[in-house]
C-alpha cells in the first residue's frame, strides 16, 4: 500500500456547509498516483489525506479561503435534461391523464407534413420503449397538440410517478 500525501495546496474554497472546504491540491492517492484534484475536506472525516489537510489548515490560518459562490440556477433546458425518462407505459398514461388520448397523438403525427420527420415520429411513437423529456418526438408531438413546454413539464412530472 502506497503512502498517501498532500503535495501542494493551490486553493481553498468554502462550501455551502460550515467548516467543509473544497481544496484544490496535488495529492498522491492510495494507489500511488499523483495528480491535481479537488478534494472535499469534512471536519469529521478521518481517512485518506483529510487528516493531513486539516492539519495544514490549522498550520496555515492566514491562507486565504475563497468564499462560497452558489452555482447559477439551472436553466429550463438543463432541468428538462435532468428529468427522468418515462417508459412507454408511463408516457401514454400521462397523456391520457392530461386528456390526450393515444389516438390524438397518432392523428397529430399523421397530420405532420409527409417526409422523414413524420416517418421518424411514427417510428418513435410506435417502437420507442422509453422517452426522454428532450426526445425530439416530445417537442414534435407537443407542437402538434398545441402544448406549451410548461404543460409538457407538468405532464412529465406527473407521469413519472405512475
Amino acid at each position, binding site marked *: 500500500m502506497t503512502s498517501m500525501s498532500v503535495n501542494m495546496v493551490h486553493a481553498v474554497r468554502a462550501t455551502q456547509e460550515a467548516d467543509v472546504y473544497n481544496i484544490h491540491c496535488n495529492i498522491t492517492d*492510495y494507489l500511488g498516483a499523483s495528480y491535481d484534484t*479537488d*478534494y472535499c475536506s469534512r471536519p469529521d472525516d478521518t481517512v485518506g489525506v483529510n487528516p493531513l489537510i486539516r492539519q495544514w489548515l490549522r498550520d496555515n490560518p492566514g491562507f486565504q479561503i475563497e468564499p462560497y459562490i452558489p452555482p447559477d440556477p439551472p436553466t429550463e433546458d438543463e432541468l428538462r435534461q435532468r428529468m427522468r425518462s418515462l417508459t412507454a407505459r408511463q408516457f401514454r398514461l400521462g397523456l391520457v391523464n392530461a386528456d390526450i388520448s393515444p389516438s390524438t397523438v397518432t392523428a397529430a403525427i399523421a397530420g405532420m407534413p409527409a417526409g422523414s420527420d413524420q416517418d421518424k415520429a411514427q417510428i418513435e411513437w410506435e417502437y420507442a420503449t422509453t422517452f426522454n423529456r428532450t426526445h425530439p418526438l416530445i417537442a414534435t408531438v407537443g407542437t402538434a397538440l398545441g402544448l406549451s413546454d410548461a404543460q409538457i413539464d407538468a405532464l412529465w412530472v406527473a407521469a413519472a410517478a405512475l
Partner: protein
Amino acid sequence: MLSARWRSSRPPAHKASVYTGGTRDETNFPIGHTILVETGNADIKERNSAHAIYLNSSYGYGFGGGGAQLAGTWRARGGYDSPGSGAWAYCFVRTA
C-alpha cells in the same frame, strides 16, 4: 502554497477498507469505497476524472444539488448509458 510533502503518521488510514456503517446519509467513506452515481442524459464523465459528488434524494448520489458533499476525492471508473432512456450511471471510487 505548501512546499513540503505531508505524509500521514497513521498507516491504517491509508489502506482501502470496507464500509461497515449503515447510515443513509453517510458522507465519509473509506478509501477504495465504490458508489454508483446517476447523472443526466449524455453528461459524460471520462474515465479516471475526478468530480465532486453529493447526496441526492434519499437513495442516490449526484453531481450537484442541495445534498451534502462526499468527503475526499472521487474518480470515475466507468459509466453506462441505458440505450434510449437517457439514464446514465457511473461507478466512482474514493481514492484519497
